[in-house]
C-alpha cells in the first residue's frame, strides 16, 4: 500500500496541481517511481496507491502499470481514491484511516504480509530483505529506520532500536517528531505488518480522533506491547519535503559517481507520460555547452548549462546560462537569461534577459521556485529564495524586480 495522498505544503508551487509523489525528479521520472521500481525489483506485484490530493497527475502517470511490469494475471496496480458509502462519509483522514477504509481490498487478496510505503522518498531498497527479517523475527510490525544526527531527528518519527543484530532489533522507544529526540533512528515510513495485527490496530485506532501511522499506530502498538521491530536501513535516503531538500537531493544525481545512480538502481518511469518516449535525442548546437549536468531526450541546448538537471523538452537558446538548477519538462530559456539555483516547473518560458537568483547567494533559503505555465516577462530580475505561483497573469508581474525571498501569487 503506497501512501501517495499528501500535498506537503512546503513544496508549495510544485504541488499546487499534483500530489508530492507525482513531482518530477531525476531528469525524467517522478518521485513515486522510486518506490515503484523498488517494488518491481523486489518482485512484489500487487500494489495499491492511496491517493487523495489532485490525483489526476498521478493516475495519468501510473497508467496501466505496464511501465513497472505490473500488468498481468496475478499482477496489478490499483489506485484507491477516497469514497463514500453507508458508514463512511469522509475523506481519508490520515494515512492509517486511508488504509483502514480499504481493508476490504486487502482482505480480498489475503496477503501473508502487508507492506506500507510512502510515495515521497528517493531511495533504493530491496523490500525482500526487510520482509525476510520481519518473518525471521515473527514481528507484528517491522518499521525501517535510518541513522541520523540527533539534532536533525526532530522532524521525523524517532526510535531507539536494540542492537540485536546488524539488520535491526526490538524497538525500545518511539517518539513522533520529538523536540529532544532520545533515539537516533529516523523512520522511513516503510512498514511491514502482520495482516491480522494491522486489521486489529486500525480498528482500534478508529475510536480516536487522529489517524496516522507515525503519530498514532506505532505509539499505540508500543504501549500495548505488540512485537515491534526496527529494521536498520543503511543506503541512501533522499528527502524532498522542502524546496531546499528537493534541490539538495537532486544535486545528488550529479557528478562522476553520483549518490543516486538511476541506472544502477534500475529506475523505471512511465515513458508514455508527457510523451517522453517520443522525444528525439538531446540536440546540442554548435555553441552549446554542458558541464556536470543531466539532460533527457527532447532537450535542445544552444546555450550554457552547468550543474543542472534538464527534463525532456527544455530549450536553452544561444546566450542563455543555467547554473545549479532543475528545469522541468518543456521550459524555454531565451537568450540573455541567467538562472541560478532555480527549480522551474513545466511549460515555463523565461523571456529574454530574465535573471533569477545570484551566482553566489549564500542566504539560507536560496532556491527560487517557479510554478508551471508561467511566461516571465523580458528583463525581469527575480531574487534568491523567491516563490512564483503557477500561471501568473501578465499584469501581476512586478515592474523590474522580485526581491529576495518574495512570493508572487
Amino acid at each position, binding site marked *: 500500500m503506497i501512501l501517495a495522498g499528501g500535498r506537503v505544503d512546503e513544496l508549495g508551487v510544485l504541488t499546487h496541481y499534483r500530489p508530492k509523489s507525482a513531482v518530477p525528479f531525476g531528469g525524467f521520472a517522478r518521485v513515486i517511481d522510486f518506490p515503484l521500481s523498488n517494488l518491481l525489483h523486489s518482485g512484489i506485484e500487487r500494489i495499491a496507491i492511496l491517493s487523495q490530493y489532485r490525483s489526476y497527475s498521478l493516475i495519468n502517470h501510473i497508467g496501466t502499470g505496464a511501465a513497472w511490469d505490473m500488468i498481468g494475471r496475478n499482477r496489478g496496480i490499483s489506485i484507491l481514491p477516497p469514497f463514500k458509502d453507508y458508514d463512511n462519509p469522509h475523506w481519508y483522514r490520515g494515512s492509517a484511516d486511508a488504509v483502514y477504509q480499504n481493508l476490504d481490498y486487502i482482505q480480498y487478496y489475503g496477503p501473508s504480509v502487508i507492506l506500507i510505503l510512502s510515495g515521497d522518498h528517493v531511495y533504493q531498497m530491496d523490500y525482500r530483505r526487510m520482509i525476510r527479517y520481519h518473518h525471521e523475527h515473527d514481528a507484528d510490525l517491522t518499521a525501517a529506520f535510518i541513522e541520523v544526527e540527533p539534532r536533525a531527528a526532530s522532524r521525523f518519527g524517532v526510535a531507539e532500536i536494540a542492537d540485536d543484530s546488524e539488520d535491526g532489533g526490538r524497538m525500545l522507544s518511539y517518539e513522533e517528531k520529538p523536540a529532544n529526540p532520545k533515539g537516533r533512528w529516523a523512520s522511513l515510513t516503510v512498514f511491514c505488518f502482520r495482516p491480522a495485527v494491522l486489521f486489529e490496530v486500525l480498528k482500534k485506532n478508529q475510536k480516536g480522533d487522529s489517524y496516522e501511522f507515525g503519530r498514532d499506530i506505532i505509539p499505540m502498538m508500543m504501549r500495548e506491547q505488540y512485537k515491534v521491530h526496527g529494521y536498520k536501513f543503511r543506503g541512501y535516503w533522499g528527502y524532498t519535503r522542502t524546496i531546499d531538500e528537493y534541490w539538495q537531493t537532486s544535486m545528488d544525481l550529479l557528478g562522476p559517481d553520483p549518490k543516486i545512480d538511476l*541506472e544502477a538502481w534500475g529506475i523505471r518511469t512511465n515513458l508514455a507520460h508527457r510523451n517522453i518516449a517520443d*522525444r528525439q*535525442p538531446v540536440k546540442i*548546437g554548435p555553441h552549446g555547452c*554542458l558541464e556536470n549536468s543531466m539532460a*533527457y531526450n*527532447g532537450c535542445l541546448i544552444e546555450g550554457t548549462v552547468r550543474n543542472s538537471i534538464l527534463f525532456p523538452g527544455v530549450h536553452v537558446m544561444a546566450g542563455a546560462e543555467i547554473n545549479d538548477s532543475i528545469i522541468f519538462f518543456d521550459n524555454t530559456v531565451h537568450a540573455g537569461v541567467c538562472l541560478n539555483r532555480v527549480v522551474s516547473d513545466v511549460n515555463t518560458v523565461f523571456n529574454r534577459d530574465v535573471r533569477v537568483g545570484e551566482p553566489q547567494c549564500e542566504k539560507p533559503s536560496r532556491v527560487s521556485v517557479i510554478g508551471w505555465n508561467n511566461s516571465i516577462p523580458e528583463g525581469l530580475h527575480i531574487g534568491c529564495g523567491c516563490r512564483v505561483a503557477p500561471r501568473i497573469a501578465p499584469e501581476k508581474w512586478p515592474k523590474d524586480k522580485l526581491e529576495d525571498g518574495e512570493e508572487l501569487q
Partner: protein
Amino acid sequence: MRESGDALVLLLAGGIGSRLNLLVEHRAKPAVPFGGLYRIIDFSLSNVMNSGLTRVGVLTQYKPLSLMAHIGDGAAWDFTGRTRGIKILPPRTGKKDSDWYKGTADAIRQNIDFILANPSEQVVVLSGDHIYRMDFDAMLSYHQHKRADITIGMMVVPKCDIHQFGAGIIDNENRVVEWEEKPKVPRTNLASMGIYVFETKYLLETLARDRRENDFGMDIIPRAIREDRVYAYPFYGYWRDVGTIQSYWETNMDIIRENSGISPEEWEIRPNPEYGDRPMDRAPARFLAGCKVASSLISAGCVIEGTVINSVLSPGVRVKKGAVVTNAVIFDDGVVEERAAVDLAILDKRVQVGRGAVVGHGDNLTLANQQYPKHLYTGISLVGKEAIIPVGAQIGRNCIVQFGYSGDSFSGRNVLPDGQSA
C-alpha cells in the same frame, strides 16, 4: 481525422539493402538504427499512424527477427485495438516447398488472403526503408479525386540520380503517360518513391492477370500505364533512400545540421523505446565536468566525459575522459575508452574502442575498401557489432572491422591500413 476511408497498408520490409554492408549483416534494412534512437522503419510506420491508417501488414523476408522484435505488438504506433492491428507477413510454404517472395508484386500476390481478410477500397503499398514524412491521407484523397487505378508517389530528383529509380513522364493532369525503370539516359527528373495507392479491386485483378509479373516497377506499372489510369502524386520535401553507407551517414548528419529539412520529433516520428532485457529505463544523458559536446545528438543513457563533435550517439554510449568522437554514428552501448579517437565512422552496437585506439586514422579518404570498393569509398570506416578495437590500435579510412572482432592485433601489427578489412 482521416478523410479518405480506412485503406489497408502493406509495407514491404523484405529488402536486403546489401550496400549497407555490416549494418545489415544481422538485420533487415528497415531495422537498421537511425538518428540515435530510431530505426529506419519508424519513419514509414509513424507516417502511417499520423495519416490515421490503422491496419498494416509488414512483408518480411530477410533476417526478420530484429524487425519483428522492434515492431512488437505495434503499440508504439497505436496499432493495437479492436479494429486496428499490425501483422507480420513472412513468406510461407505454398505449392512448392518454399515460396520466397520473388519481387514486390509477387510478395503482395502471395498475401492476397490478407487483403481479402481486411476489406478496403484502397491498398497503400510502401517500402519500409526511406527517411521522409508524408501524409498518406492526402494522397488517398488525391487518388480518389483523380479516380485513378494506381497513384504513385513521385518526386523531383537531380537528373544524374534518375538511373536509380523508376522514372515517369506525366501530362498536365499528372497522369503518367510513359515509364522507364532505372533508365540509363534520363528523359525526366520525376522519380518514383516506391509508394503506391491501388484500388483494391484493381490490384486483385491485375495481380491475377499474369503470374509472371513479379515486380511493380518492372512489370505491373508499365502495363498499367499503357492500359489503365495511373497518376503521379507529387511530393515536395525531404526524402532519402538511405541505401548506401554514404547516404546513411549523410542523412544522420542532416539531423544535426541547421535547416536540413529533417526533424524526427517535429515530424512526430515514434520510436519503439527498446527495453530488451534491461530491467531499467535509460536515465537522462550525463555530461560530466570537462566534457565538450557540440553539434551532436546524444540519446538518453549516454555518459560523456570526453569530446563529441558532429556525431550521433544512440542510447547508452560512453565517451571516456580524453576520448574524441567526431563525425561518427555510434549505436547503442558503445564504449570509447580514454584517449581513444573515432572519426568518420559508423560503430554498430556494443563496440568497444580500446584506450588510445584510433578509428579513422590518417588523411587518405579516397582509397576505397579493397573488398567492397562500391560500399566504402568516401573515407567512412565501419565497425561491426560487439567488435573490440585493441588498446592503441589504428584503424585507417574505408576500413571494415567485422562483427565480434576481438583479435589482439591486426596480423601482428596494431594497424589496419586504409581500405583493409579485419
